């Protein structure tokens, strides 16, 4: 993880659904409606780096006294639970973590989960994600030894790996291969 980490940047660019709590003039181009305002309660997909800021940035306006208007929203947008954390997916993860197609679902699932977890402190969700990662990591390690890695690359599971898991897979293969080369040298 770091400033120059490409995966990190790509994970930050992942779009997540959110809802505008106020109308913003001139932002219509976000929903292919240039020149028009974004109306209150519009649902939009925004990249995480933007959504995160807008969701935690408080609106300050000089003429408004909070006492006068308690319904006045204090944040620009609200984050909506994205599809990849929907109960359907979570149940699928609980049933069989090895069968989830993470690559199709979200190539940066874990990186995003880390951010999500720190934003919402969702202990329950993170526990599920941790358990899933553990199970999948064991499967990855099993595949990566004994020349099995070619099998994995061609198998269904191999195409369903998240980017973090791919990195782990590569490291495991290298480690096992190094030892094997040494043993037979």
């Amino acid at each position: 993880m770091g400033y120059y980490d490409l995966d990190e940047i790509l994970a930050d660019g992942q779009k997540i659904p959110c809802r505008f709590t106020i109308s913003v003039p001139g932002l219509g181009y976000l929903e292919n409606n240039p020149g028009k305002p974004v109306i209150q309660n519009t649902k939009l997909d925004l990249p995480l780096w933007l959504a995160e800021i807008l969701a935690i940035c408080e609106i300050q306006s000089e003429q408004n006294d909070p006492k006068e208007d308690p319904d006045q929203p204090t944040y620009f947008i609200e984050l909506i639970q994205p599809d990849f954390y929907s109960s359907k997916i979570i149940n699928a993860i609980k049933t069989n973590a090895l069968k989830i197609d993470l690559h199709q679902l979200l190539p940066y699932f874990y990186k995003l989960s880390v951010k999500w977890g720190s934003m919402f402190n969702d202990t329950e969700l993170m526990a599920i994600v941790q358990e899933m990662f553990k199970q999948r990591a064991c499967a990855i390690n099993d595949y990566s030894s004994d020349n099995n890695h070619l099998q994995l690359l061609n198998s269904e599971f191999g195409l369903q790996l998240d980017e973090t898991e791919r990195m782990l897979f590569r490291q495991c293969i290298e480690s096992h291969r190094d030892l094997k080369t040494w043993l037979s040298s």
Partner: protein
Amino acid sequence: MSLPKKYKNTFLPSEVEFQAEDQPILIIPRYALKDRQLIGTSIPVLKPMKRAEVPLWLGFILKQQDRCNIVTPSWLSINFLKKAYQEEVTYTTRFFRMPWNWLEISKMILDKASDDMTEPPHQIRALIQDLREVRLIKARRGLKELNESYMQLDNLSLMEINELRPMVVGVMDQLRKLQVGTNEDEEVSDEEGPLSYDI
């Protein structure tokens, strides 16, 4: 340093082997050699046919020059290895206590001094291979118990740990990141520690 990441996070097997070369080994010299003091270690007086304990690397140099015979360590025998294998199979939850460098030393002795062994080297080699496999399977099973903060693999040797390290460290680090409420600490440690294990 501009080393590839994998060299920073773990050792190569050859580096582990290099470390193991410092282990003492018994030899039977054929020629006399004066004692000498080296940085960090000393070599005793070598008298012909009198057993002496020297570092492995010296033993192999002398062996190569036909100046000594290497005494096979007691654990590198068919009996001991068979017993170890039995123990490994019997107790599924723990590892049999092998020397810390057993893989490296056995490989070096089998490669460089197999003619000094009293028992057939190919049998020893096969037993070592079996032992390694059964321990690897056991270690792999143990990995299912991984968590973000703690891991204990008693009696696993250096080379075996080294093989599993990228996987274990990577998984534990990721689990730690996924742990709610730890992310603030992590930001700090990442900036400070050039040795942090990134995955």
